[in-house]
């Protein structure tokens, strides 16, 4: 049980996908302007990360590995994720239109989000078992959610400020991201101290 908590907490705080691993920067910078779109995007990411892990992990373990096809990993994973996202969108549209309304816009964007492909590949690389991989996917998604929501708050504060001409737009956003990322570095070492250096 402790192991799951460690995986979850370190995925959320220490190895935060956006702020320390630099995965999924495009949506982080692009969709974080408003709180509601940031929330919608991150919920969609959590959802797709869990689905993608649940599908790609068995494929790697029971299809690619036994047949010595490990080198096909990249191609198979990206195709599976793309197909999965399409499928989920179609199903949501038909059966749960309210959820589709709030998440649907973000779903196709996620197909080529490097955080999703990243989490599926990292789960294999780290040698997790299925349960650990799912916990890691959940943690990574929650970390993305936390970073997005926090950052959308930071950005709404920046909007009203007087910014030098050449810093307007992206540069000031990136510098704000640097400070947000700095605050996450404070979590380093917390897990080791909490659980006695496991």
């Amino acid at each position: 049980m402790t192991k799951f908590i460690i995986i979850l907490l370190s995925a959320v705080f220490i190895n935060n996908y956006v702020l320390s691993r630099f995965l999924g920067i495009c949506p982080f910078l692009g969709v974080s302007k408003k709180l509601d779109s940031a929330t919608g995007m991150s919920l969609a990411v959590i959802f797709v990360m869990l689905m993608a892990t649940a599908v790609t992990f068995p494929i790697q373990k029971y299809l690619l590995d036994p047949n010595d096809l490990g080198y096909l990993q990249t191609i198979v994973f990206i195709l599976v994720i793309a197909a999965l996202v399409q499928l989920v969108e179609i199903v949501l549209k038909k059966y749960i239109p309210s959820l589709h309304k709030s998440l649907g816009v973000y779903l196709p964007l996620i197909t080529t989000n490097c955080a999703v492909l990243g989490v599926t590949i990292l789960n294999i690389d780290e040698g997790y078992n299925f349960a650990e991989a799912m916990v890691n996917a959940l943690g990574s998604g929650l970390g993305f959610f936390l970073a997005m929501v926090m950052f959308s708050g930071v950005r709404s504060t920046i909007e009203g400020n007087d910014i030098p001409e050449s810093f307007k737009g992206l540069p000031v956003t990136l510098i704000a991201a640097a400070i947000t990322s700095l605050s996450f570095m404070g979590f380093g070492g917390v897990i080791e101290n909490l659980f006695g250096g496991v």
Partner: protein
Amino acid sequence: MKALNNFTKGIIKENPVLVLVLGTCPTLATSTSIINALGMGTAATVVLVFSNMVISALRKVIPDKVRIPCYIVLIAGLVTMVQMLVKAFAPALDEALGIYLPLIVVNCIILGRAEMFASKNKILASAIDGFGMGVGFTFALFLMASVREIFGSGTFAGYPLPVLSNHHISILTMAPGGFLVFGLLIAAVNRFSKHKPKKNDFGCDNCPQAEACGKLKEEAAKK
């Protein structure tokens, strides 16, 4: 002359990283050292040149409706080849780039060039365009990595520099430094380039996949 223009536009006027702001993830992640940056740039350039060539050659064969999945499969195949080559001939680089090597598949620059240029132009022009964009990407990575390595760890491509190696700002090599240096570089580009920074210089509006993914259409419908 046109060929030369195709080549140089990727380096300066339409630099994929500093002007179009594509492929930010690998830029931030692999620019901690100059060697890594050059390795990443080279790998992406190889993929870019060949993907542009293959997609341009197949542009009349691929049906319009399923073009994006087709491009992704072709790119993924090329990335796998590059990945295997790097693993075989430069295992140290493979170790250093880690997850970011397979993630070239989802690099916006590659899909963006396929969609914007290779699907409309002849093979040779596409190859030159891909090469120019690749060189532009590598150049931007090199620029960022130089700043981060020289000031962050006081070395240049692994060789220690006098004075700086004793007084390095190690935060620059860590995650916050990546965002900071990138922000400052883009601000510098904005300052010295003629065009005024547009409001929607980044985000979905500028994403090459925007048209395919339909988010823009939904936003337009709202308006």
